[in-house]
């Protein structure tokens, strides 16, 4: 939104369950916001299943498979098995760590590309943005961190924060591991308040940010003293861990400000941090702060006072009433009348991962080579996402990606002029030119699988309509639809497409008839992926 620009605000400010029409438009909206790149079948299945059953399915979190070893450089874990509980080799542990880190990077892309109909990956990315720790120097710890995120993706937020507070990866990231009674380090305590829980309100007095004060940061740092990490890069112990070292813990009684009811936190050694977090969670600002973020991530960037007073307030109330369970909040939002308001379609510009996987996933494009080749292809995809502006495991700062908080641009930050060019280059690459490569193995759009998954592939108008359903949150102009159909039919009458498709359908393994079909779809998608309409969800 430009400064001063007036926009049509949502008509519905109701958090009551949505009871309007349930067609492809609504189902596709739900899926675009909760998974990466829904397929046409997923959309039509969601229409048949109805909203409640679809949301229930989306809110189940499947088991997370660990990353696998694909390089002999690991030195310990055999190829094809996971390394997450393996020691490091005495010789060349650096090469081992590099191979594990590449495996992790690929693993993140695999999870997204091979998602089930579950919100898991969208939630995990949300929490990666929220608790924005980056790769640490032992990939087992990095893995554990992301495993923890997965475990709590829709779980209890209070417990989540407690577990994160003493997680080895976080202890490294925000210096908790060197925070001790002799030299307190405020880093984690500050972010715990400012970014992870109550958030930072307006500064109303020196050192007073409405929701917390500088003295709370100081007290929090003392409360958190004593935690240590161990066995990073160990050649003998098969995992990292944190532990409490009482001798370096500050045992004084800490006083919190009036924002926390002037609470005192007595020494409780290794349980003290949890007591502190319990006190923090008594402040309703925690619920408001998190629900705002959830709203921005799943609905729209524009937190108007009305949205704050109605939507966010209702979600926050649900959050508090459920003792900070995340699932009921997300469920309420995804079933709300507000969520399906037409004015909220297409309000989010895809982040690079959404861009890439809205292409791959919606077109059934999954690399199908050996384990090693697949991992390399996924690693290349990871690197490409980095190039176009988003690196999983490496948010740009402790505050996460700017697109999720930086007013007024928000998600427009994903689409600056150089990123747009790279997106377009990528689109051409995976549609027309084979795609991401490792040797002769290529990962591009699976045009034929995509086409065959549509409702009526032999009909050119139906193909284009289905493509619009899958990829465009608010449809396409009549001109654009005609243009796409023109490309599909190569400017010929529609029946020529029907003949060509039918020739292919009866003889699908004959490349002489399949390749031309594939080429037409590739040209349509290449153009579509460069339209403004495709850039949003």
């Amino acid at each position, binding site marked *: 939104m430009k400064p001063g620009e007036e926009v049509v605000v949502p008509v519905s400010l109701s958090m009551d369950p949505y009871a309007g029409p349930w067609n492809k438009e609504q189902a596709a909206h739900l899926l675009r916001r909760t998974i990466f790149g829904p397929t046409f079948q997923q959309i039509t299945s969601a229409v048949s299943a109805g909203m409640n059953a679809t949301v229930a399915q989306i809110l189940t979190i499947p088991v997370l498979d660990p990353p696998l070893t694909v390089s002999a450089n690991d030195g310990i874990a055999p190829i094809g098995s996971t390394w997450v509980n393996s020691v490091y080799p005495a010789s060349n542990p650096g090469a081992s760590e590099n191979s594990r880190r590449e495996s992790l990077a690929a693993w993140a892309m695999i999870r997204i590309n091979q998602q089930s109909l579950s919100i898991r990956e969208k939630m995990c990315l949300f929490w990666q943005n929220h608790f924005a720790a980056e790769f640490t120097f032992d990939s087992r710890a990095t893995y554990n961190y992301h495993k923890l995120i997965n475990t709590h993706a829709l779980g209890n937020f209070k417990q989540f924060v407690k577990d994160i507070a003493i997680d080895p990866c976080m202890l490294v990231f925000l210096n908790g591991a060197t925070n001790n009674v002799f030299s307190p380090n405020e880093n984690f305590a500050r972010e715990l308040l400012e970014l992870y829980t109550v958030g930072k309100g307006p500064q109303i007095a020196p050192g007073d940010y409405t929701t917390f004060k500088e003295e709370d940061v100081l007290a929090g740092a003392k409360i958190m003293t004593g935690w240590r990490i161990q066995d990073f890069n160990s050649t003998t112990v098969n995992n990292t861990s944190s532990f409490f070292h009482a001798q370096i813990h500050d045992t004084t009684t800490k006083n919190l400000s009036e924002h926390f009811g002037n609470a005192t936190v007595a020494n409780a050694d290794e349980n003290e941090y949890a007591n502190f977090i319990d006190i923090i969670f008594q402040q309703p600002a925690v619920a408001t702060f998190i629900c705002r973020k959830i709203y921005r991530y799943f609905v729209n960037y524009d937190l108007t006072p009305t949205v704050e007073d109605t939507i966010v307030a209702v979600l926050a109330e649900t959050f508090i009433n459920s003792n900070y369970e995340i699932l009921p909040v997300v469920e309420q939002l995804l079933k709300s009348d507000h969520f399906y308001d037409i004015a909220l379609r297409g309000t989010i510009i895809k982040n690079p991962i959404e861009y890439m996987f809205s292409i791959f996933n919606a077109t059934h494009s999954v690399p199908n080579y050996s384990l090693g080749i697949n991992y390399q292809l996924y690693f290349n995809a*990871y690197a490409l996402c*980095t190039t176009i502006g988003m690196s999983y495991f490496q948010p740009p700062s402790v505050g996460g990606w700017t697109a999720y908080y930086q007013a007024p641009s928000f998600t427009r930050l994903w689409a600056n002029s150089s990123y747009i060019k790279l997106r377009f*280059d990528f689109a051409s690459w995976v549609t027309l030119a084979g795609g991401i490569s490792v040797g002769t193995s290529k990962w591009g759009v699976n045009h034929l699988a995509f086409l065959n998954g549509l409702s009526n592939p032999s009909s050119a108008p139906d193909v284009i309509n289905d493509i619009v359903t899958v990829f465009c949150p608010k449809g396409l102009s009549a001109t654009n639809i005609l243009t796409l159909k023109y490309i599909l039919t190569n400017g010929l009458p529609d029946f020529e497409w029907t003949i060509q498709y039918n020739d292919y359908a009866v003889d699908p393994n004959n490349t002489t008839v399949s*390749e031309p*079909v594939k080429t037409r779809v590739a040209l349509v998608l290449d153009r579509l992926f460069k339209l403004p309409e495709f850039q949003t969800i």
Partner: protein
Amino acid sequence: MKRRDFVKNMSLSSLTIPFVFNNFKYEAIANDLFFVPKMAEDRVLILIRLNGGNDGLNTVIPLDQYENLLIQRPNIIAPESSILTLNPAVGLHPVMTGMKNMFEDGKLSIIQNVGYPEQNRSHFRSMDIWTSGMMDISATRGWLGRSMDNAYPNFPDDYPNTDYPDPFAISMGYEVSATCQGLMANFSHTVTNPFDSVNLGTASGLNDGTYYGSHMEYLSTIIAQTNAYGAQVNDAANAGSTLSSLYDNNNPLAVQLRYIAQMISGGLKTKVYILNINGFDTHDSQVASTSTITGKHADLLKTLSDAIAAFQNDLMLLGLESRVAGMTFSEFGRQIASNASLGTDHGDAAPLFLFGGCSNTSIYGANPTITNEIESQAGIPMAIDFRDIYASVLKDWFLVDPTEIQTMFEHSITYHNVLGACNLSVAETEKDKNTSLVYPNPAGNNATLRVQTNDEWTKITLYDLQGRQIKTCFDGVLHPQMHHIPIDLSDLAVGNYRIQIWKKSGNESIQIQKVK
């Protein structure tokens, strides 16, 4: 840990496997063989796709086969007397007066019976074969794309840049051209109207006042800004001119060709323009029921002929004839026998047109033979492989090394002399590089003077053989290198002239013949 030490910013290309490119580019080739890099660099190829499968027998009509044509296609054939004769054996469809005039002016060539072995009669498959220039089903690149990959490896990374600010190819319309598909990207940039400041062709951008509409406006703007090629195209179109009065605003192909004349004259360095004209799939009503010289096909041929003739006229007036060549292509010809619906069905080979100031005027290849009895569904057999025409265009027009060209095709190439009229002959090429020469000679409206200078004042003057000064072609200081200076002969009567080169390092005089 440093944030970015894990994955450095990788460009798209760096992620692919190392790819062995042949180690030379157009420029290098041209330098070696012709000493005229600027000439090839400045040359433009126009491709016009006749989409749907053009009925060649109704376009270029073999007059010596007329009797049997009358038997095979009595309901669609044009009356013999109406056909525009090019020579006693070959005529053009009656509506093609523009192209007939071009033929007589020496600016049109016809290549007969062009196709490929084992014709595939699927529009889609056959078009893929024609655009890739490969029979191999696994071919993914276009014939021009392969050549451009060699010349500009790593495209699109770091393009456009200061050396190459303009798109290498422009596809008029909404679809990138498969002829220009390269390894990692398509070299063609789509343009619907070069005067639109946003000519990526993707602008939607209607802000309906919603959050989404606001995003659309933003994205359209950023896409336009990103589209550096768009601005170049726009600037060139605005800087360019058009001088012909022959363009018909109701002829969409003519309008697009006029845009192209404006882009070229405005200085755009684009090498290839691709246009498309639909409707050649004339299964029915190819001719009107009332007259076999009107109807759908006649309209299409008139559109084509008028547009090309207007464009050629414009190029002549703009002094660009020797820089621009054109070629038509279609996925197949049609069957010899017409059907009962006043139409023709998918066939095999068909003629192809080449045009421009440098075409070797000729009808290349023999007429097809039509017998009084033919097999059901018979088409015209292929006599000339279209891939050889492509190869010949690369060789004659873009001056690509034949050894290099052979690597781009799967078959053993036979070259045809189709677009070499403006090239130096081998003998001329071998001439002492310190000697000036003018080419082509004889010349039509445009010639080029090749001259080697030191860092010196140079004046080039044109005289008739009576010694009267006609005009000064150049007057100024030239840097020490080989120059290629255009000599405009369009305002001269047919005859012999003398070009006088005045320079400190030695004056020279060359005779040139102007022909029609």
